[in-house]
């Protein structure tokens, strides 16, 4: 198996964190999990860059997406630095690498559009809301600085997908929009399962250490999907409301 070992890089950052003994363990688990998830998403952006190249995207855009992979690795190090500051080790089982779907049933433009919808318009837009709320609840200090840095990059990652959709409206004919709608139902189901699995209600809560209230985070997740993502996708001509309603059957 692979072990993700960010100890050396993480210790070089050393943010000053004062841990409450009552919630320290929960904070350790949370930040170690974030370290794994963030670092583990770098291959997603590298594969997205390759798919964008295959779809004929401009070189500057492809390079920007490759840089996003670097940002995700840097986020892993930042989260690892919090683990170390809490007295833990920035060491954990790495996520198993999975290939990005190629969506061979459609052309390369539509294939990469599906993946941009899932990664940027769904996952990263939800991340902007979750991290943004956590940052606002956290007192000023080194930990909030970490969140500010990560949030700033996540905004760019989310915008990649929204910008792609806006720029390619003329290529989204009716059959493509219908097919993307069917894909959205699958992507919404996947997103919901992923978020609910990771946002657990009932555990310790400590906004000072980034240990969020799982129930509140779940509520924010649903609000983001239902009041931000779905209406915007609908406005861009994709049948998102229908897809969200049909996600359970997808």
């Amino acid at each position: 198996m692979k072990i993700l070992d960010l100890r050396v890089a993480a210790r070089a950052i050393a943010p000053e964190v004062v841990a409450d003994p009552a919630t320290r363990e929960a904070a350790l688990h949370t930040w170690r999990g974030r370290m794994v998830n963030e670092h583990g998403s770098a291959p997603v952006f590298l594969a997205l860059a390759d798919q964008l190249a295959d779809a004929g995207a401009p070189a500057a855009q492809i390079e920007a997406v490759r840089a996003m992979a670097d940002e995700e690795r840097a986020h892993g190090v930042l989260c690892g630095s919090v683990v170390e500051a809490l007295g833990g080790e920035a060491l954990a089982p790495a996520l198993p690498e999975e290939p990005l779907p190629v969506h061979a049933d459609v052309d390369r433009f539509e294939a990469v559009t599906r993946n941009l919808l899932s990664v940027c318009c769904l996952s990263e837009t939800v991340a902007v809301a979750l991290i943004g709320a956590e940052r606002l609840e956290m007192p000023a200090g080194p930990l909030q600085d970490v969140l500010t840095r990560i949030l700033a990059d996540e905004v760019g990652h989310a915008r990649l997908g929204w910008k792609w959709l806006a720029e390619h409206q003329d290529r989204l004919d009716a059959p493509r929009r219908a097919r993307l709608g069917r894909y959205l139902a699958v992507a919404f189901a996947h997103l919901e399962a992923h978020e609910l699995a990771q946002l657990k209600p009932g555990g310790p809560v400590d906004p000072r250490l980034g240990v969020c209230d799982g129930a509140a985070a779940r509520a924010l997740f649903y609000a983001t999907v239902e009041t931000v993502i779905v209406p915007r996708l609908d406005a861009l001509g994709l049948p998102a409301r229908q897809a969200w309603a049909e996600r359970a059957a997808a």
Partner: protein
Amino acid sequence: MTRADAQARALRAASRVTFTLGLFGCAEDVPDPTPEPAEEAQADEQAADAGAPEADAGEQRDLFVDAAVDPTLDAGPAVPPDAETAPVVADAEVGDGGVVCEIGDPEYAACCDAVNWDFDAGCMAWGPPVPPALLA
């Protein structure tokens, strides 16, 4: 700040990232349902834009926010320059060794136990997962 306030402001920030100036021009067909005071808008925008220039930032900007972004806003701690090149993922043997651990596989849980992993820890939903495939 109350949790409700924080969530409302975070939602507005998420809403703003969905709007870009592309071929749409000024198609504000999903107006912000909860307009915010100007100073709140500026604070949120500073947070959302800190250190996140777009490749074509000259052409792209949020439609909702006119507030100037403070270019001196601290974008958070820097990652050491050698962090990206460090051998951060290494092959290692944990538990019975040589096992490829997959999420959901009992062996993966055993490996995680070896490093005190806690599957029940919450609030970790960061980092986009690999998108799903569309099964026929």
